[in-house]
């Protein structure tokens, strides 16, 4: 178990960078009245970012991931609990990968 001092400095600075990104949105918008177009933009953040994070993993990998994504969405829209939905997605991607191999 050892640690290089320069490397430790790098870790701390990277940690600061990550924390700064998480803090800045909160500090910037805190106390700001949000309405009109700004509200429309901020309201769209959760679904738009959620989609952007996973879209390549679902659409760019192959048929198995695309179909499993659709299965997961259907299960989720049936209002299944979170863990059941994740389980359905994982199970279907395993089954479909075997099918398409």
């Amino acid at each position, binding site marked *: 178990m050892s640690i290089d001092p320069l490397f430790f400095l790098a870790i701390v600075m990277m940690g600061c960078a990550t924390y700064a990104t998480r*803090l800045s949105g909160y500090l910037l918008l805190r106390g700001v009245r949000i309405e009109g177009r700004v509200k429309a933009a901020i309201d*769209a953040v959760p679904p738009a970012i959620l989609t*952007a994070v996973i*879209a390549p993993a679902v659409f760019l990998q192959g048929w198995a991931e695309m179909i499993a994504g659709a299965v997961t969405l259907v299960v989720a829209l049936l209002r299944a609990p979170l863990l059941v939905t*994740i389980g359905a997605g994982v199970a279907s991607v395993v089954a479909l990968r075997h099918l398409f191999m």
Partner: protein
Amino acid sequence: MLLAYAPIAALWGAVAAGQGFSPLEAILMSGIVYSGAAQFVAVDLVKAATPLSLLVFTIATVGLRHVLMSASISRHITHFPKLRASILMFWLTDEAWAILERRALHEKLTPAYFLGASMPLWPNWILFTGIGALVGNRLGDGSAIGLDFAFAAMFIAVLAGFWKGPRTGAILAASAAAACAAKLLVPGAWYILIGGIAGMAVSVALHSERETA
């Protein structure tokens, strides 16, 4: 959630160990940086002997999506004391944020809920980093049992709660198309930000149409 985290943390620990990180270094990095995407990118950059300033700058760009996430969550925690909310932001990972946004759709967020939904992921992340770093590549291939898809499945599940009709459909389509295009054309993690901004732009465009109608 804890289950979805463990394999990713262990995988990162194993990758880091493979690049010459000591287990202590890997554990410290998971505790302090605490961002899966940033850590995977950082391992690549350290391997390539990237200068420190560029390393920190790149990590910040990888984390830019968190600016939007924390801006979005800030609307639901205006009643939190400022200092407490600022500290809680440290644990605002993608997964914790998704859970919190889902909760905020139906119920008011409390500091206790925020802490309970976000903070337990942290020791779990650190623990499995350590296990991954020590056990290394003796771990099996997670994709064989579909664990790599758990993260996507969770986001889809959370996403379903945001459906509010065709307008949402347009936002999602724009975001998905822009993110996929950016993923193919632009190196790095810019696709998340590009997709997010495309979705926001569509939302604003539809909003003004509705206002003038």
